[in-house]
């Protein structure tokens, strides 16, 4: 809480009270009789405010408003009631009668922000007390409209957190990356902690269940999660049972269409080209087909969530059920999800013990598509009809000429996934301020796939005479975390907060699969694999593995007058994945904060500077994702290596070593320093600037080793190092606020600079690592497009610099085609912008995000601009305009600037007081998503995944187009 600000308010109020007191005294004649006055405290949108304090001025009489914002207080006419609620400006009214009606509190922009309770891992803190870099997003700021992956909620919301939705596939998630990523080979995704349970699958949680998301950005904040904290931590708080009774429905219907196509020649354009160029050998199949449109559809999606809550002070429950049917804009693709969550709590033992339990579960169904359709839909001549006159699919034969509509239609693919997250938590207050907590959780994800390619289906269907496959994969995590917290106000000025705990995690994965070929009947689909006659080695398999993580952790906070704050954390992690020589790692951190605006020398600025806080921290975190299980050991496995046994005249399974063991394997270590400045100005603007510098060392990479020295070509080792530094800015402003009109806006800006600083040590050496393979493009087998090299960021495109196309249509390369740095996949700047306006019952929300300066290899265009394609394979309109006659050549010509600004959502809503219909609050809205993208990128969409080293920043036929969606929704409280 901002003390300076409060002093001002207090002073004003004091003055007002004096005046009122004076008036009361002088009019003492009608002030004696007491009665019970009734009123309702609401916000500017007329939402009830439960828990607001109502005090009769000058007395100790006070009450708290109930769930509907109602209160009843004993007072006399002429008394002044002081109404306060955290995050709102205090309000006073003079009692005139028993019926006080609605009392409207207006938001106090500055204190609201500072009073936010932030999850810091194993506890919460007020934002005002934080010493580390933590960004918070609460539910009403989260993305609206169609959300099929929970990651999307954060798009453009947190400075430094890049969310890339590389595909429009409704069944596929987005990737998250904080402050540039710290690893070459391991995941760069932050650790997701849901309701205190670390490592949860983000998508186990329904978006509507989320109350707030806190992002621990720097190491001093994330170090409490030790060897899993290097890429930051995302703390998700979900709805739990809370006091009162309520019921709510949220739902929408959405219509989506393809936002952008690749402009290919139409049949008539193709025919014109053939005529003009007098091509006699071209085959015109007589059709007029737009192969992209043949695969697309207008999608209609719907979502429904019903929630009810019934709780008292000491016990209660909350239930939520949801259904989502998210259709894709490619035919036959959709995600159907049925989910439920249940949470309950009970106090006991003199309210000293709180027991909570909850379960979150969902069931997904989707139909995976064959990714090869995207290349073929651009290959096939527009003159080929989709169907023969007899209704069968056309087949013209030849490699990559397969009819994509047939490929997409003649298959049966049904996947399902169950997710379950259950927990039990007990909190015991041993003495005042000392709490013991035990939190046991169980997460179970199970995925099944079912695939059948009938014997009449093009490609494998025909060649395998029917192909059926089933797989099952289970993933189970059991965790127990126990910890003690001690919270004590030592004297008026000194407050301490201590935490110490232990955590045990067991992660087991197992699965099996079976496939068969040679089905005499296609009637069984994938349901009776035994009916297949053709059995092959490797058709049946199973696997199992396990990892354990054991940790001890501690944290101490010290706070002096809310002006000086200090935090230190330490975590000791032991992981079964680590090599025998490095089983345990220690991850410490320390941070301080200083509220400058509270210093007496700042008194002169208090008129406009409400808050100024400087933070500094340093910490060490780790990343153990990249190791995987069993990588440090010398193992034998039965793999695909069979051998012919001449004695029994049969094939047998051989056993052999499977890897070069490395007993020195350890986590990747990231040391990060962070300086942050929080400020609030003129009561309307608050903001944060963060500066960071993080060094990751012991970078894991699978090093190539000499084949004369080792039986396997690579060995995983901790060698290199990587530096990320950057600056982030977050600004929130309340631009206008009257009784009827409110206007808020927020901006996030982030700049990250990445550099690989070391790749070699004495044992393992490499000058540069080729990445971004072009293998599979005609004439480019074994060729790479990127390098990882000291001094360059990961994902640096390395190729010839093209200076243009000469008069003969040949590419002109600078420096005789010497390979050089031609840009990289990392954005120079990423940004988000949001604004919300409300006027009376209407509100309007706009959110945009974008990236600037990142490059994308438009491999799709590179392949399509091939003079050898015509007349048999289709080309783009732009190919004919380009005049290119040269063979397909990788160069900077195809490495495009993919800067963009996307209007992600625009929501217009109307809020109704539903009382006249017997309802509570009703909100009706319409949302448009992905309404436009401003970009110079020539492919379908500039937002391309940069995960991994295989094809980061590649646009290569594999991109499921992104939809433009309009949704109509209603939220109704009962």
């Amino acid at each position: 809480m901002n003390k300076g600000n409060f002093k001002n308010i207090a002073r004003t109020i004091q003055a007002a009270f004096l005046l009122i007191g004076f008036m009361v005294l002088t009019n003492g004649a009608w002030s004696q009789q007491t009665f019970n006055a009734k009123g309702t405290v609401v916000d500017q949108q007329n939402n009830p405010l439960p828990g607001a304090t109502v005090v009769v001025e000058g007395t100790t009489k006070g009450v708290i408003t109930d769930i509907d914002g109602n209160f009843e207080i004993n007072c006399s006419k002429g008394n002044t009631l002081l109404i306060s609620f955290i995050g709102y400006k205090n309000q006073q009214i003079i009692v005139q009668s028993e019926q006080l009606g609605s009392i409207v509190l207006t938001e106090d922009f500055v204190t609201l922000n500072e009073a936010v309770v932030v999850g810091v891992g194993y506890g919460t803190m007020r934002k005002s007390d934080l010493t580390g870099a933590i960004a918070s997003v609460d539910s009403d700021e989260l993305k609206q409209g169609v959300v099929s992956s929970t990651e999307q909620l954060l798009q453009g919301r947190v400075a430094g957190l890049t969310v890339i939705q590389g595909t429009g596939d409704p069944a596929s998630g987005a990737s998250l990356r904080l402050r540039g990523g710290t690893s070459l080979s391991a995941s760069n995704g932050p650790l997701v902690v849901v309701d205190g349970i670390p490592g949860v699958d983000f998508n186990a949680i329904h978006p509507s269940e989320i109350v707030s998301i806190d992002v621990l950005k720097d190491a001093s904040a994330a170090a409490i999660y030790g060897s899993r904290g290097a890429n930051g931590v995302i703390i998700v708080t979900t709805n739990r049972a809370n006091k009162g009774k309520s019921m709510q429905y949220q739902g929408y219907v959405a219509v989506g269409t393809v936002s952008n196509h690749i402009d290919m020649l139409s049949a008539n354009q193709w025919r014109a080209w053939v005529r003009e160029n007098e091509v006699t050998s071209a085959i015109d199949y007589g059709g007029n087909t737009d192969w992209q449109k043949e695969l697309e559809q207008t999608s209609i999606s719907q979502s429904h969530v019903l929630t009810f809550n019934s709780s008292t002070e000491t016990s209660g429950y909350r239930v939520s059920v949801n259904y989502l049917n998210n259709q894709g804009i490619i035919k036959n693709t959709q995600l159907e999800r049925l989910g439920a969550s249940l949470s309950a709590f009970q106090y006991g033992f003199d309210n000293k013990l709180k027991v909570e339990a909850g379960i979150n579960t969902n069931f997904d169904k989707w139909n995976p598509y064959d990714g090869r359709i995207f290349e073929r839909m651009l290959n096939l001549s527009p003159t080929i009809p989709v169907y023969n006159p007899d209704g069968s699919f056309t087949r013209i034969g030849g490699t990559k000429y397969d009819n994509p509509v047939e490929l997409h239609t003649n298959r049966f693919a049904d996947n399902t996934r169950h997710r379950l997250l259950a927990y039990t938590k007990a909190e015991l207050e041993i003495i005042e301020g000392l709490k013991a907590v035990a939190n046991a959780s169980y997460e179970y994800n199970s995925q099944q796939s079912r695939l059948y390619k009938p014997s009449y289906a093009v490609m494998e269907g025909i060649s395998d005479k029917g192909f059926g496959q089933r797989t099952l994969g289970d993933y189970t995590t059991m965790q127990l975390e126990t910890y003690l917290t001690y919270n004590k106000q030592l004297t008026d000025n000194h407050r301490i907060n201590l935490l110490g705990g232990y955590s045990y995690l067991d992660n087991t994965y197992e699965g099996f699969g079976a496939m068969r070929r040679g089905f005499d009947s296609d009637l069984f689909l994938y349901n009776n694999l035994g009916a297949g006659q053709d059995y092959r080695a490797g058709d049946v398999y199973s696997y199992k593995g396990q990892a354990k993580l054991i940790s001890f952790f501690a944290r101490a906070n010290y706070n002096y007058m809310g002006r000086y704050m200090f935090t230190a954390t330490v975590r000791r992690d032991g992981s079964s994945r680590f090599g025998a020589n490095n089983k345990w790692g220690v991850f410490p951190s320390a941070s301080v904060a200083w509220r400058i605006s509270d210093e007496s020398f700042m008194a002169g600025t208090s008129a406009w500077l409400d808050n100024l806080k400087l933070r500094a921290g340093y910490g060490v975190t780790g990343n153990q994702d990249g190791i995987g299980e069993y990588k440090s050991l010398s193992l034998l496995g039965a793999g695909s290596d069979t051998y012919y046994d001449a004695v029994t005249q049969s094939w047998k399974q051989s056993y052999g070593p499977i890897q070069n063991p490395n007993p020195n394997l350890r986590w990747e270590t990231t040391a990060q320093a962070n300086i942050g400045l929080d400020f609030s100005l003129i009561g309307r603007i608050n903001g944060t600037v963060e500066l960071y510098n993080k060094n990751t060392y012991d970078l894991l990479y699978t090093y190539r080793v000499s084949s004369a020295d080792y039986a396997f070509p690579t060995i995983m080792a901790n060698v290199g190092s990587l530096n990320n530094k950057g600056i982030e800015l977050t600004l929130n402003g309340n631009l206008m606020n009257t009784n009827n009109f409110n206007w808020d806006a927020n901006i996030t800006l982030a700049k990250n600079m990445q550099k690989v600083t070391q790749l070699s040590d004495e044992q393992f050496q490499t000058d540069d690592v080729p990445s971004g393979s072009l293998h599979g493009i005609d004439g480019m087998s074994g060729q790479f497009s990127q390098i990882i090299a000291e001094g360059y960021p990961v994902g640096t495109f390395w190729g010839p610099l093209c200076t243009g196309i000469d008069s003969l249509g040949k590419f002109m390369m600078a420096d005789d085609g010497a390979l050089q740095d031609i840009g990289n996949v990392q954005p120079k700047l990423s940004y988000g912008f949001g604004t919300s306006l409300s006027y009376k019952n209407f509100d309007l929300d706009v959110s945009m995000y974008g990236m600037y300066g990142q490059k994308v290899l438009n491999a799709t265009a590179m392949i399509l601009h091939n003079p050898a394609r015509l007349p048999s394979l289709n080309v783009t309109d732009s190919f004919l305009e380009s005049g290119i006659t040269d063979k397909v050549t990788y160069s900077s010509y195809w490495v495009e600037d993919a800067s963009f600004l996307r209007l992600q959502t625009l929501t217009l809503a109307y809020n109704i007081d539903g009382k006249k219909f017997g309802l509570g609050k009703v909100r009706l809205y319409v949302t448009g998503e992905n309404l436009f993208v401003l970009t110079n990128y020539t492919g379908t969409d500039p937002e391309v995944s940069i995960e991994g080293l295989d094809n980061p920043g590649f646009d290569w036929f594999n991109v499921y187009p992104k939809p433009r969606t309009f949704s109509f929704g209603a939220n109704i409280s009962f």
Partner: protein
Amino acid sequence: MKIRNIFLGIVSLLMAASCTNLDEKLYDKVSSSDYGKTPSEIETIVGRAYASLRGFSDEISNAFPTCEFVLFLSETTSDEACIPTRGADWYDEGRYQEAQFHTWSPQNLLVLSAWRYSYTGINKINLIIDQVNKSELSDDEKAVVNAELRGVRAYYYYMLLDLYGNVPITTSVSNTEGISNSPRSEVYAFVESELLEILDLLPAEKLYGRFTQNVANTLLARLYINSEVYIGQARWDDCIEACDRVKGYQLEPNYFTNFLTENENSQENIWVIPYDSKEGTVGNFFASLSFHYKQKQAFSATSNYTDCVNGICLQPGVYSAFDDTDIRKQGFLEGDQISLATGSVILMDNGTPLTYTEAIIDYTAASQNEGVRIKKYEVKEGETWERDHDFVLMRYAEILMMKAECYMRMGAPVMARQMVVQIRDRANVETPADIDLEFIDQEWLREFTLEGLRRSVNIRMGDWFKPWWNKDATPEYRALFPIPQYELDLNSNLVQNPGY
């Protein structure tokens, strides 16, 4: 207070119970120290040595003995095969052009592929021998098991000796320090001594796909016939002697019996790498790399044949080196290719007929239909990318040809002709009364086209160094390939071959 104590008790119990053990528990794998104790377990480990002969594929290179790029290295640098550049297709960083022009650099992927094939096999076998030595078998039993393993390893070393000459010799399980080269003469001596040491321990009988005494003797014969090239000392007698020790094989009456999909019944094939795609074998797809994209229409009326990618073909002059009556000529595709569905000539994408020509007018910008294609191994409708025929490494005809060449070189052309005539009779061609070394050279070409032997013959005969189609004279040092740059970068103790 009671509940509180119980609660705290549980908490501390849970903390203490499970906090120490971080050993990884194995489920679907076994530790190398726990496996390979019993004879049946040993068998499965030895099996992996034979599986290694099929090579592998990873993100660094393909390393398949049947095609990419182990076979391609010796074939596309010889005078019998080539991979023309067709537009952008098959340019692939110029690796095949370098092979054709004899201008390969140490960076060439073909050069790396064969090196990795050999050493990966060698180091896997070193690990397997280590496992065998740690087992509970008796010393005699170990010696017998190890004999076959050492034999396969000697085969890999023979390849290295032939291709790279001066290579490191390793027989231990790990060389983290980086191992240095041995001169070619030492590698030669190592291969010979290994083979001679194990000869009597190897199976004397025919065992399909295994490294038997017959295989060892054939390999020794190969070593001796090239002895002059390898160490500057001719050993024609030793070669004939080794050939004479090969027992139990004969020429198949039909040349193509050796190349059937079910070629395990051949009485001629001495050593093969067995393949059966249903048993999970991969890497056996040479023919698909040769045929045109639309060739499938000629093999199946419903185009039920694997995709083909129009690559390797015969150098001009090879096809016409066969008499028309020579049945071996049927192993190639030349002229119009007829669609089984329509009965007429298949049309390529550009609308012109698919007619393979022997002439390749511009090697660096060839048309899709130029070059004679290779279908020596049987082709069947419905075949997939991965083939099931066993890949022939050694067959009895080679014994005859090696003897013929040795007799010829030792000045006994009549004896030589007795060998050659057997081969030519089977091929349904007359043998001239007088033959010379040049004739033997051409017979090697005709009998063993695309069987991986041609480069050695070219070098032995000296033609390697003379200009031929799309190739200038080749300097002496290019009789050896360079040590791959990739390997030099990873191992500072390796020294590049002279001249590179």
